[in-house]
């Protein structure tokens, strides 16, 4: 009997850090474990006893890459408790802020984290030497996303301008005008990105996933919608906990989320796109076709193209709203605390993000529950790595390790969201 072990101590180019352990015995993949080490419930505990109005700012600290997603799920859940509904202009501006985060996150992942895998570079540093113009464009796109978040979120990192009921302050038309110009540049850059990503050499790997994402009657989903799946699930966000369960896994401090009675599923760009292709504009649909995508994508490596498509959608959506921008009469509606339970799902760049809060009649948070996209995808990532390793058992350890890391990066896992600190080991016996 022979067991082979490959050790990788850090997963490079994955936000946050964590570990993957793969054990191969007699040329068969015996076990794949994605390990996450840090206490995952730190923020849920931190929220207890705080004011309902603090939830957007506290949860924004969970992740430096997707703070807006945490703010959005938090404010929507609180607004459901308080019976607050925003009118169209304020709702649109929340969508703009979310677009800024999608531009930042997808721009960074497509070019700086994922593209080096396809072009055969160890990292963006090595890629920059040969593809300077591409990296410069990536940085410029990221910067446009940063500017959107800075203008509507108050600052780029851990934005502080979102409140339950709206925003603390909204910019003037004069402040928005130069951003519109920058977004017009970004629109062309994003179109080029879609075609460029579509031209990359694409490994073949097809997964049989149950895709889960939000679906809105008219829009490509971001802030709201029903939870739907590729296998017939169709529920309200309020019903999340009736259909999904979190399971404690011994090798991980994070909780794995699964569909009750059905198991692993996948959230994120592939799921969102495949369940909502008809919600993209005809022009973007056409460009996606030109880039080699069908209306449903099952190859996780093609997620780089899907992210590029979503990058373009985010730029166009922000432009659509901001080209007609007039500051709303008031930046926020008044809110009055009352006891209750509120749940909300929004679409973080990496996938669906669920929040649930219970507050008392004075507005103090009694319980909080946060289910980030990475913990929902963890089982699927493990399954994919097992499939990929099975196909490439003959590779030397170092190369196999490299491919494992690539398979993980397909999902852009934000380990920072699920918890922090990841290292990777692959073991053959």
């Amino acid at each position, binding site marked *: 009997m022979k067991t082979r072990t490959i050790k990788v101590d*850090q997963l*490079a*180019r*994955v*936000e*946050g*850090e964590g570990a993957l352990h793969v054990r191969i015995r007699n040329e068969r993949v015996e076990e794949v474990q994605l390990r996450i080490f*840090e*206490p995952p419930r*730190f923020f849920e505990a*931190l929220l207890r006893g*705080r004011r309902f109005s*603090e939830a*957007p*700012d*506290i949860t*924004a*600290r969970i992740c*430096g*890459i997707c703070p807006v997603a945490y703010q959005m799920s938090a404010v929507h859940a609180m607004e459901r408790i308080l019976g607050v509904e925003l009118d169209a202009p304020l709702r649109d501006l929340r969508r703009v802020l979310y677009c800024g985060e999608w531009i930042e996150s997808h721009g*960074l992942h497509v070019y*700086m*984290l994922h593209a080096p895998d396809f072009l055969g570079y160890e*990292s*963006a*540093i*090595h890629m*920059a*030497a040969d593809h*300077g113009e591409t*990296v*410069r464009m*990536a*940085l410029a796109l*990221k*910067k446009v996303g*940063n*500017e959107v978040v*800075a*203008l509507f979120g*108050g*600052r*780029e*990192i*851990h934005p*502080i*301008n979102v409140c339950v009921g709206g925003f*603390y*302050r909204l*910019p*003037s038309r*004069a*402040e928005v*005008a*130069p*951003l519109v110009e*920058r977004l017009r540049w970004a629109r062309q850059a994003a179109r080029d990105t879609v075609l460029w990503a579509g031209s990359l050499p694409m490994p073949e790997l097809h997964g049989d996933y149950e895709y889960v994402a939000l679906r809105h009657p008219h829009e490509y989903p971001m802030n709201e919608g029903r939870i739907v799946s590729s296998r017939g699930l169709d529920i309200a966000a309020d019903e999340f906990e009736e259909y999904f369960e979190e399971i404690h896994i011994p090798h991980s401090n994070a909780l794995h989320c699964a569909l009750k009675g059905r198991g692993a599923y996948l959230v994120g760009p592939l799921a969102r796109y495949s369940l909502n292709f008809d919600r993209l504009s005809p022009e973007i649909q056409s460009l996606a076709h030109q880039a080699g995508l069908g209306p449903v994508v099952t190859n996780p490596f093609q997620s780089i193209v899907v992210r590029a498509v979503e990058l373009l959608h985010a730029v166009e959506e922000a432009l659509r709203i901001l080209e007609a921008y007039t500051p709303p009469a008031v930046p926020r509606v008044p809110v009055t605390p009352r006891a209750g339970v509120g749940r909300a799902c929004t679409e973080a760049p990496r996938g669906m993000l669920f929040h649930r809060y219970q507050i008392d009649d004075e507005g103090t948070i009694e319980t909080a529950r946060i289910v980030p996209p990475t913990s929902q995808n963890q089982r699927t990532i493990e399954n994919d790595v097992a499939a990929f390793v099975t196909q490439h058992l003959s590779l030397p350890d170092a190369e196999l390790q490299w491919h494992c890391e690539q398979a993980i990066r397909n999902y852009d896992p934000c380990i*920072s969201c699920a918890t*922090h*600190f990841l290292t990777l080991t692959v073991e053959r016996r």
Partner: protein
Amino acid sequence: MSGNSRSGDAGRGEDRPSGPPKDPRAAAGGPPSPHPSPATPHAPRVIGVGNRLRGDDAAGLLVADLLKGKLAGGGVVTSDGDAADLVILWEEVDSVIVIDAMVSGRMPGTVVRHDVAADPLPVDAFAGSSHHFGLAEALEISRALGTLPSRFVVYGIEVEATSLGTPLSPQVVDAVHCVVDAVAAEVEGIRAAASRAP
């Protein structure tokens, strides 16, 4: 200072954007300027890097906080260490001082000054924080793109504990104050030299 009290600061005492825009260029309808330029000519941009929720990883941010009150003329900013944002943050300046947490096996609180304009930063020493794809990578991307500022200094502060919610180690707190003094002196020296230049 406890981890919880630091975490609890989230959202409190923040500079809420409730008044008119502070950047005069934005008020005048010019391009938005998310990154403040050094207000004083020839002053280096000082960037504190870290995560306030992760114990000693906040060291660089604390140095920046203290320097903001000490250095007249601005130019002090903070970052969570995202590589792309760092590259953007220093792309248009010619002199930069960065302060970040470091894991090099030295005694906690040890301070190392790296002049990285010529030599790469030791990646391993700056990969132990929660912002993994970060400072060392950002430096090398800028070097490859030809946008690395000509004068570039990194102060690394050796950390002890960086778990969520842990308090700052006493040695790291002491080191923070030493680095504040060292960076302030370095900035003043650069300004004085620039003012003497023809």
